[in-house]
């Protein structure tokens, strides 16, 4: 039979256990970004370009009929160059390499920028074929971000290339 002092002690200690669990299960509260900050997520996944050569009629004739593809394309993909400017200042620049042992996979980038909420000038430039000079995809826009808003910079050739959402 437990003594009264032992019962009181157990109640206190089990109560302390429950209180400890209950407190740290919800507190202290956590805020990932400040009140007046918005988030820009740059996330691009794209297959780099590749230099294809048109086969001559003689080359095609030498191939079996079922393999007469008009273009001879290498398996490897080009690196992709990407630059992001924020309010006229360079914010991020990278060269994305294709994935895969044969460098034939997509090139990807994921980066998040915390910016003050408000109006910002965002410019994104991308080249998916480094053998050619300049950038073949460019998007520049004045955006207005609410506090806590997430804006995504993505790329989809079917949607005209770089887009913001």
């Amino acid at each position, binding site marked *: 039979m437990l003594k009264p*002092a*032992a*019962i*009181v*002690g*157990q109640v206190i*200690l*089990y*109560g302390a*256990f*429950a*209180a*400890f*669990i*209950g407190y*740290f*299960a*919800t*507190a*202290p*509260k*956590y*805020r*990932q*970004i400040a*009140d007046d*900050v*918005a*988030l820009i*997520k740059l*996330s691009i*996944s794209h297959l780099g370009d590749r230099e294809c050569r048109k086969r001559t009629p003689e080359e095609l004739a030498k191939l079996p009929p079922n393999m007469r593809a008009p273009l001879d394309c290498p398996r490897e993909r080009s690196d992709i160059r990407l630059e992001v400017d924020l309010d006229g200042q360079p914010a991020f620049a990278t060269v994305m390499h294709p*994935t*895969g042992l044969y460098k034939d*996979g*997509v090139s*990807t*980038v*994921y980066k*998040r920028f915390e910016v003050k909420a408000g109006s910002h000038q965002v410019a994104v430039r991308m080249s998916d074929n480094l053998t050619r000079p300049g950038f073949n995809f460019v998007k520049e826009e004045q955006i207005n971000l609410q506090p*806590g*808003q*997430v804006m*995504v910079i*993505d790329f989809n050739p079917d949607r005209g290339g770089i887009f913001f*959402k």
Partner: protein
Amino acid sequence: MNFHEPVRASVRTVFLRVEEAFDAPFGGEDNPFRHLGAMGLYLLWIVVATGIYLYAVLDTGIEAVYRSIGYLSREQWYLGGILRSLHRYAADGFMLVMMLHLVREWCYGRYHGFRLYSWMTGVPLIWLAYVAGIGGYWIVWDQLAQLSATATSELLDWLPIFSEPSARNFLAPDSINDRFFTMLVFVHLGVPLLLILSLWAHVHRISHVDYLPSRRAMLATLAALLVLSLLRPALSNPPADLATVPGELGFDWFILFLHPLTDLSSPAVVWSLLFGATALLFALPLLPHPKAPPAAVVDAANCTGCDRCHADCPFAAISMAPHPLRPTYRLAVVDADLCAGCGICAGSCPSATPFRKRDTLVSGIDMPQQPVQALREQLEGALAGLGGNSRIVVFSCARGADASSLAAVDTAVIPLLCTGMLPPAFVEYALRSGADGVFLSTCRNGGCEFRLGDRWTDARLQGRREPHLRSTVPASRLCLHAAGANDSRTLAAALAEFRARLDALANDDRLPPYLRRASHHA
């Protein structure tokens, strides 16, 4: 210079003091600190039981799951809401208890030798527990789930395991579809199942496993969590919206602490910490540690295959095989890698009785470092040198309270590897060979270094386990006292009290003397 040992010793001192302090209100049987593994398992069963209900009633789908769990917490608060809260709080408790269990086993040096397997199989459990716990928060798909899912995927993307960043799955509201929840169910059901399977592996090399704590501890823990669930029910945050970053959130620091840590540092730092800590835990057994004690040795000529050592071994180091000399008999076989060198098997052996007439006492299973023959000689020598009114023999556990200072003209102290190694017949032998009383100092209840030494000693002396102490031995001349490493003072007081009791006893309950060398048994 070895920094590990001083740190470990310091933490061990703290742990020991806390355990002993908790013994006061709880007693050894109910003391949660002495049964952290069993407490963890119990909390896990609460998580599983409540999880089965939640799994049965929750709708799957982006909005459906949020709606249905919200319904549980609001409309069905008396059942679903409480079970949801219990599920969460028991999971938090499990994490807490698991980490305490890890620290306790480390500081007591239980990570090498015969405990190596349990240590190594325990380390991956931590990873599984956290994967299951973090995945559980995602299922609700509220803002906390969104924060955790995004942060976890960003953390994972630092590792070169995905061809495309997994964080792309959480870019915008239209990135998520109902198939996401199929994956979540896989994670949150599959990983806990793997965890339970791994727990079986974790304990399967020890015997008489405490799968659950005492009934009183279970009821009290459940009551505490129920009260917590009623006072502070687990509720959802606003629904996830990937177009915005969640604001200030109530945060589960037991399970989700990695996210703030990543925000404060970087994924590289967090992964380095996680992999570094894991590697350190796996490498701990490689650090300098005491040499393994000699393993128990079986003497085939004296082993009858009675199975008692097999039944009593706390670490499943003994198996039974066909006896090479006696057809139809069996023989104990010791796996030296699993043997703790505690001697509990020697204490269980019926052939270890000191009343045997052979000049050299050889038992079926014995400890090379303290054989029963040496123990009998030590006892006989000590008894021959005792004087005074009440001559007492103290058998003490070498890992419990230090009894050496109790030695006196009228008191002989014989330290044992573990009190479980003392065959009960030695008590009667001592009383019939000149001792007025026998005092056994075991470890505190639940504090035995070899898990079961104090339990088996008590059961054998009370006649509840074989080999038992004969009922003709007067209980008044035997004292069993539980004393931890810091209990030297209470041990001395208990011995003084026992001596006073013996002094007051009449001599009519004395056992007839037994003179082994004068006897001429066949």
